[in-house]
């Protein structure tokens, strides 16, 4: 049997590892300041209602309460949103979801703040609830926003599906339903807002993009951006959930109004109700192939429930439309997608960014086609795979790559796929295996401002200071910066001083999102290393008298023929600063396709599942994966991202759903929103990294933050079919459905 084990060696512990696993690290929500107040936000009782009256008097009268604020207290724009600022800081007329903010208080204790919130009197007139995107799309439906309920439409067409389908021998038509997943970061949204003596405001709150928070807060507070300092790393997880503003506007306004530091830290329940989620989608696909296995036509309709406000809903839909044919070549394609406003919370950025939903449907189609064609799923995939220099999935020019073919070949080696499934002697258990493939675009895509950059300098302590505007959200950013910088410069990790997460100190690098961090750090260093080393060596030559060409940068200083002749500290001179910065854009496709990507990563996953016929529960017992994302920067971080992403996908497939009834959450805490624990995950997962890139590829390592989350769900569903003969179309997989499908007959 083929051998399939992880090919990633263990690397040194990440710089922030110990503090995080021991709990010694202080997060911003752990901070205490003298005279600090506690803020709390009053959120709507109704998913959709008119605010008739709002009376804060009784709350203001409560001893210990220092401020009660409403829409009247917003100094600038009463709205936020990464692209469109359509979400009110405070609602004053209408509430559109159960998390909409109506008022906030600051008090001397959290208990008094809590009591004050209860004393705010709001009279609502409930309005009809839009809890179904398809009804909301109906032109007769009550519009939630002035532009109607369709936030965004996106489409792609190539060839003619109406001509393609008649040529097909097999046509599969299926509708797939994807759930609302919660990011479930360990640290709920929170932070401390501190008015400084010089009139500036310091914001200590985790985010994926400090500068963007600063911009959004400046608009709301009617302050110039320079008067706000955002300190934003580290934080206890984000997964896309904290790229958008959350509690920052309330903390900032309360701090400015009271002149005192204000802490807000949401409870899990508050986080659940107010926080953004992954888009629930209903995806209908019709896919046809010839007897030979050649896929001829593919028609896709996507309805995304984007909830009450825009945030990144349009971009997520664009991403899903782009990835609707994945790595396959299909001559006739018609994809149409809608992001629709409803009163169901707010959906937005989430690790995978629409890729999880569309890939579940696409790979489901491929598997069903394979089954109907009596062809091996691997063979069918291989047959329809794009070639290295083929265009991308929406016909755009992309960096040449055969990553899809490489991961498919690699996963073919997985012994799981050669499994004899009659190996179980327990009549109550059935086993099955499945495989799936995906590709995932990195960066924001065509037409979206996607600048990045970094800065490197020698500081007065003789440390090489490397600064980025990226955030440590738990992904292992510091280890990536450390590895790339030490390799590029030739210094040791002890020589480095890494600066991130502070708008007073870091350059603009763009958001820590879209699997772009690792890639952009590598690109920055490619640009920074030459000029920086040049400057170091110039200075060293001047200082030492040796020929510059004889010198090299090494550990702890400048070296000549195996001997260190100067330390970095000795190189530093106050009046001759050595500092280089760089600014550039994420590489993008030249074709004008909104959100179209240029760089892709690839993954193939093989799984083995055990179906319990007593309960209908699915246990994933083995996961093998192959990932193609360029050179590995930090092996531990790579494994962490792939395995972590996979487990997030396991939860998505089998357990997690932020369920709603009548636009209200039925899962309000972790006792009902079920995340996988260590007992739900396979004891061993194998990750094989394929580091080869297309010949001449100049784009270096791609990020792996998302790719691990995409292909697992369809692989599991295929394995369930293998075990039971039942095709699942709705996630998370319902145990009740499995039992129903396999009804025991006595």
């Amino acid at each position: 049997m083929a051998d399939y084990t992880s090919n990633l060696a263990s690397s040194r512990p990440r710089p922030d590892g110990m503090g995080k696993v021991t709990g010694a690290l202080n997060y911003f929500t752990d901070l205490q300041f003298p005279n600090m107040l506690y803020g709390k936000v009053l959120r709507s009782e109704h998913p959709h209602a008119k605010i008739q009256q709002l009376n804060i008097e009784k709350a203001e009268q409560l001893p210990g309460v220092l401020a009660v604020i409403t829409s009247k207290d917003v100094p600038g724009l009463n709205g936020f949103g990464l692209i469109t600022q359509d979400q009110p800081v405070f609602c004053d007329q209408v509430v559109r979801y159960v998390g909409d903010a109506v008022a906030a208080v600051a008090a001397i204790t959290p208990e008094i703040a809590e009591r004050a919130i209860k004393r705010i009197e709001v009279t609502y007139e409930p309005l009809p609830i839009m809890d179904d995107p398809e009804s909301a799309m109906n032109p007769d439906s009550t519009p939630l926003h002035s532009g109607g309920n369709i936030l965004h439409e996106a489409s792609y067409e190539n060839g003619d599906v109406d001509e393609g389908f008649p040529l097909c021998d097999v046509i599969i038509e299926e509708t797939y339903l994807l759930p609302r997943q919660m990011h479930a970061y360990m640290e709920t949204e929170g932070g401390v807002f501190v008015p400084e003596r010089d009139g500036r405001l310091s914001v200590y709150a985790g985010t994926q993009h400090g500068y963007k928070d600063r911009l959004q807060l400046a608009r709301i507070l009617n302050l110039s951006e320079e008067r706000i300092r955002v300190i934003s790393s580290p934080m206890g997880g984000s997964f896309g959930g904290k790229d958008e503003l959350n509690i920052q506007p309330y903390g900032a306004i309360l701090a400015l109004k009271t002149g005192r530091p204000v802490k807000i830290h949401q409870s899990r329940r508050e986080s659940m109700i107010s926080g953004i989620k992954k888009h629930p989608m209903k995806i209908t696909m019709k896919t046809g192939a010839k007897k030979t296995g050649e896929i001829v036509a593919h028609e896709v309709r996507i309805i995304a429930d984007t909830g009450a406000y825009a945030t990144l809903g349009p971009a997520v839909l664009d991403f899903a439309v782009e990835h609707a044919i994945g790595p396959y070549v299909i001559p006739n394609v018609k994809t149409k997608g809608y992001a629709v406003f409803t009163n169901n919370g707010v959906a937005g950025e989430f690790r995978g960014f629409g890729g999880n939903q569309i890939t579940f449907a696409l790979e489901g189609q491929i598997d069903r086609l394979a089954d109907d064609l009596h062809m091996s799923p691997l063979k069918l995939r291989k047959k329809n795979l794009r070639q290295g220099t083929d265009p991308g999935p929406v016909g755009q020019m992309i960096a040449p790559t055969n990553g899809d073919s490489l991961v498919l070949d690699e996963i073919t080696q997985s012994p799981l796929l050669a499994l004899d499934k009659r190996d179980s002697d327990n009549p109550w258990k059935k086993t099955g295996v499945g495989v799936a493939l995906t590709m995932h675009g990195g960066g924001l895509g065509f037409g979206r401002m996607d600048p990045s950059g970094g800065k490197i300098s020698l500081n007065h302590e003789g440390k090489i200071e490397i600064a980025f505007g990226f955030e440590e959200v738990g992904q292992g950013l510091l280890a990536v910066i450390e590895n790339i910088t030490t390799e590029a410069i030739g210094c040791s990790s002890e020589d480095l001083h890494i600066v991130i997460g502070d708008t007073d100190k870091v350059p603009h690098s763009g958001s820590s999102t879209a699997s772009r961090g690792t890639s952009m750090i590598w690109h920055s260093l490619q640009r920074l290393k030459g000029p920086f080393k040049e400057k170091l060596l110039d200075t060293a030559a001047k200082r030492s008298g040796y020929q510059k060409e004889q010198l090299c940068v090494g550990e702890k200083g400048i070296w000549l023929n195996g001997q260190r002749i100067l330390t970095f500290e000795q190189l530093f001179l106050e009046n001759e600063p050595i500092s280089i910065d760089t600014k550039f854009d994420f590489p993008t496709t030249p074709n004008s396709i909104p959100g179209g990507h240029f760089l892709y990563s690839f993954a193939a996953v093989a799984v083995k599942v055990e179906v319990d016929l007593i309960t209908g529960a699915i246990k994933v017992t083995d996961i093998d994966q192959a990932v193609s994302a360029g050179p590995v920067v930090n092996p531990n971080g790579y494994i962490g991202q792939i395995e972590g992403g996979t487990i997030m996908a396991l939860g998505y497939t089998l357990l997690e759903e932020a369920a709603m009834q009548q636009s209200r959450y039925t899962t309000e805490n972790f006792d009902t929103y079920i995340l996988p624990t260590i007992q739900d995950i396979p004891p061993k997962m194998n990750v094989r990294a394929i580091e080869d890139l297309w010949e001449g590829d100049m784009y270096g390592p791609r990020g792996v933050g998302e790719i691990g989350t995409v292909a697992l769900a369809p692989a599991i569903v295929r394995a369930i079919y293998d075990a039971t003969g039942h095709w699942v179309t709705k996630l998370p997989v319902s145990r009740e459905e499995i039992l129903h499908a396999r009804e025991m007959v006595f």
Partner: protein
Amino acid sequence: MRILETTVSSPTTIDEAWTMWKSYEEPITFIAGGTFLQTKWEKGVAVPSKMLHLGDVLEYKQIYMDTERQIHIGSFVKLAECKNHPLIAKTLPQLSQTIEKIAAPAVRNLGTIGGNIANCVGDTIPLLLALDAEILYLNKEGRQRIDLQDWFEITECSIILEVIITLDDEEKSYLFTKKIGRREAFSASVVTLAGKLTVKGNQLCKVRIAAGGGETQPSRLRNVENILQHDQIIDSNVLKRVYQALMTEYQPVEDVFYSSNYRLKVASNLLISELEKWRGEYGGLYK
């Protein structure tokens, strides 16, 4: 900084607790580990203004076997202590297994066996019912001893002091307990089923089956027990009748996550699979 707005009395002896309790005119909330109440408060149930805390009571914190092979588990024994106790591990490993499936280690370090029973939906209850456990409790009149199943029928307030389990003599018995949660660990129960089949000579002399799960108060399934005991030989016909009896006798409470129909199916599948296992192990004992 949290400000507790509840008056808590913490007696150190059970007599002191009893005296305090009798002095209250209105009903009072008893608390030991507090883990069950915490889940209620987290869901928005108001924290009572007065509580009688039993966690500091020094008595009823031990596990021992008396001369009549009866195991006494003090009500205030922590779930984790009970699980790890050598006597339990040796004589009732199924109880250890059941406790291991309750919540998470931190909860088991706080929660008590008495509390798990007193909350009326605890995961240990089906197994204790299958074991014919008895309860020693305190009401305003004094100490009383009663079958666990009958204790649930009592409407007056009481403090559980001990759970008492009588070990079998030389009989061959098959004891099983299964908890199905929403995931592998740290989950509330969807279905919990326990049973005990005792063979004496060539006869299936005693059958106990009990089921609970979620908000369903666990109870014995007497019709199921009667069919099994009456028919002795468990063939597919009997299984069919067992299945039908279970469908009428077990009435699981549903929630938005699992229907009662699903819970019924799971309970019957569990029972059938356990009976199959039992038949495999002990079926040859009698014909």
